[in-house]
């Protein structure tokens, strides 16, 4: 636990539910161990030497530094999530015969490869029809993309759990909402790729000595935003916050795994998210509270967390 609980407590009373939500994530998290928090606190004290004078902006600056040092690590390094410092949140019993999915924003790799989304989609379609040259184009796109990606942990969900969204006509939006990816589609369209790969591919990659391949998400794994919600320690996985308020009790399982290289066959679909979700203000409060109650019931932990409604 951080030494800055008074700041978090005060921020959790903010009139802005998004700010309160971030503070709550830090307060509720039960998976990031004391050593990780000590590491975070040390960065906070580098930013602001007087612990009583730490502001929310200082906290945000520390978050950025922490991400760059321990989360957005180099492609050949291991982020904290999979190092012994996070051993309490390691996930070591993921079975091989499962399929994982991720929704990826691909604007950057498209620009880097000087390729339009239509062109990539066309090559992907032709590759699926058996055109070997088109498949090479998709593979080359993945090569460029892999070269742009650092070693940050990858959030993933299980295909079998989100199959209906994958098969939805509006699959990109349906998945965005179910996986709680609130930053996709806001302020303009997002080009996205639905990635799908077997857990065996993740587990077959060699990990650095003393580290692991999979872990449970914590607030210190880029969870300082309003669409993340930490799960109680009894919960088997992470649980995504659905962006449709009425469905916020759905608790879709999510895990973290180490970096993998994408291959052409991992691209299941290509699409675009061109509308924003509406989870803000009161609907955000409602959704987070519904999600919290659902977590409390699922884990039989009425003591876990605190409703927002009572505060903001």
């Amino acid at each position, binding site marked *: 636990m951080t030494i800055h609980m008074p700041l978090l407590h005060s921020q959790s009373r903010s009139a802005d539910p998004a700010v309160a939500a971030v503070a709550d994530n830090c307060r509720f998290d039960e998976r990031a161990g004391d050593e990780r928090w000590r590491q975070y606190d040390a960065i906070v004290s580098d930013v602001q030497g007087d612990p009583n004078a730490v502001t929310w902006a200082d906290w945000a600056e520390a978050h950025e530094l922490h991400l760059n040092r321990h989360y957005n690590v180099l492609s050949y390094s291991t982020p904290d999530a999979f190092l012994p410092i996070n051993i309490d949140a390691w996930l070591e019993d993921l079975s091989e015969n499962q399929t994982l999915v991720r929704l990826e924003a691909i604007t950057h790799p498209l620009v880097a490869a000087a390729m339009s989304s239509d062109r990539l989609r066309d090559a992907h379609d032709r590759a699926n029809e058996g055109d070997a040259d088109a498949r090479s184009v998709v593979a080359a796109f993945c090569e460029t993309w892999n*070269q742009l990606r650092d070693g940050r942990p990858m959030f993933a969900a299980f295909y079998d759990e989100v199959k209906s969204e994958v098969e939805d006509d509006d699959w990109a939006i349906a998945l965005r909402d179910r996986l709680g990816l609130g930053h996709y589609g806001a302020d303009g369209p997002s080009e996205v790729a639905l990635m799908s790969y077997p857990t065996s591919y993740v587990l077959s990659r060699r990990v650095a000595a003393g580290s692991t391949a999979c872990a449970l998400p914590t607030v210190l794994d880029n969870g300082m935003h309003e669409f993340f919600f930490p799960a109680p320690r009894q919960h088997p996985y992470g649980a995504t916050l659905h962006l449709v308020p009425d469905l916020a009790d759905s608790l879709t399982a999510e895990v973290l795994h180490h970096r993998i290289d994408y291959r052409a066959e991992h691209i299941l679909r290509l699409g675009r998210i061109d509308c924003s979700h509406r989870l803000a203000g009161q609907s955000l409060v409602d959704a987070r509270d519904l999600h919290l109650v659902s977590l409390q019931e699922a884990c039989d932990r009425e003591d876990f967390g605190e409703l927002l409604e009572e505060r903001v």
Partner: protein
Amino acid sequence: MSADWLASFRHDPDQAIADLFSGRAGLGSSFRLDLPEFLHRAFPADLVAERQQLDGVLLSWLLTMRGDQPEQVRRLGMSTYAKRLVDALVALQLVDLPNSRNRIRSDLDAWLRWLTPLRLAPERDPALECWRLISQDQPSESNAAAWLRLAADPRPEYFNVAWVGLKLLPNERDAQRNQLLMAHAALRHAVVISHGDLGTARRSWNRRIAVLRGLFPRSPGHWHRVLDEVTEAIVTKETGFTRNLALELRPAPTKGQSRRSPRPEQPNTRVQFDRLEEDMRDDPSSDRLPRRLLDLSRRNLHFAEKTGDSYYFVRTLHNLGSQLLRLAKWEERELIELGALVENALVWEPANAYTWGLWADWFAVCDNLPAREWTLREMARLFPSNEYCRVELARLLMERDAQDWDEPVHWLRQAVEWNPDRVHSHVELARVLGVLGDRTEAIGLLKGVLGRDPSNEIAKAVLEHLGLEAPDQTADAATWSPVPVPCHSSLVRELERRGRLAGEFIAANVAGDLRGPTALIHEEAIKGDSLAGFYAQWLGLECASQRPPHAWAWTACQHWQERSADEEWEQLAAVYPEAATETRFLRLLAANGGGGGLDGHSASRRFFSNGTVPALPAASFMRDSAEQIETMDSEQREEAALAVLASGAVGSLEFVGSVGSLA
């Protein structure tokens, strides 16, 4: 989502950008996007005024980061510092900000010099992002040479950026030009990564060509022509492994088709070259000769830009240019045009010592002897066994300072040692030694020359003059008719900087102690400059500890000094694949020729033979030295290591974006 931040940007753009990079802008979903994508979303095309502001602010933020590097690295750590630079450069790509891009393009050499040593990984390589940035919206086809060079880097991410650069090259509606150049690039890359293995090279080529066909779906006949043209150009110009590979990859003629398809754009260079050379012999002072050379060279350059084949352009220019500079009378505007062509030739073939020599001569004709000296110093660094630059540099230094000839003698002795069969340096050294009173060694040198070449008139003349107080400068020294031409480009400033660094280094190193001033080396090494850092490391200066993460020679020098084990050299080669050849050479040298289970001769054939290594300035030096590695004494090995380290410490100047205009 980013509305609040955008409001703060409108109020105080510099502060808003600083807050965004530092994270102080806020927490929450809005800031979950990576910074470049955040800016991409926040500045849609219709925010014209704000985008213009962002263009200026991002550039100024980058320049501030450059100026504050030591302090920023101390505060943030190298990884975060490099990440922020990469984020800014990627943001420029995503938001598409033309002013910053053009500013960086026009001064690319300086940007790359700063950014190249900061590489930590393929995704955190600010120099690579700089290249990617200038691949966008290229104003002309003149960058083709740079992309082809980049494609010959063994790192796949460099190849991919080079390919994008070639794909986006303006083509006057003829995409076949891009395809030709991209295929050419694929072949260069295949050669470099294959280490002489045809199977590896063929697989790499096939994979890339499949992508090319997928990007540009065309008929089989079209691809046959394109691939035939590329491989044929290599077959006729290259030797060794590269030629063998091109022969193997050359598509088989289809039914009813002759082996060769015509190359309609190929210049009739041989005939024009011969005619011009003949006319130069008949009437060397003709006013029209420079203009004819310039016109021919421009046509050849155009051909190179369309096909990737620079053979005619570079060779015609340096062969005839060198002669004409001495013989003909040049107008000022013709000299300016020649300078631009020379710079273009160095873009195409930066490891061509003859073109460098032409540039040095050009500065002499432009009455710019300081720039001539810097160019000769840079040549001496890049080309360890080049005789011409050492002799010319020695002459220039002696003319400048009639008292202190330690350095000229150093250059001449080095030229003699590394060119035992050449005449020029032997005669010059004999001439100098004669003046210095060392008649015995001088006579020995001249007798050696006359033993190999009894008809050498210059050697005879020097022998006659031995004992005179001043050397006979007229025997074979070049003579110029200076036409003052202003040369103030940023590249000349960089030449000067490198020249001054080299001057300090040589003075300190030749003296054998640190009596000479090393202020510039010190100052630049602290800023993280790769070349200065290497010099500092070699000399054992304290500032050498400020090493950036990706400075090959600086690191390799430390390995050399610490007598690193074989595995450490291997590790070094893995971290610096672009300098694998030089690392392998040093490893051999460190092991006294016995490294990697190969003797020097086998190693020379396997690793340093023609056609399997990229066109490195030190390639021939490494090849020749590897042959004799077993017979080298420790002092010679030390000198060879210094030469290869210096040559690889920093690349040739990057002329892209700042080459002289040919308009």
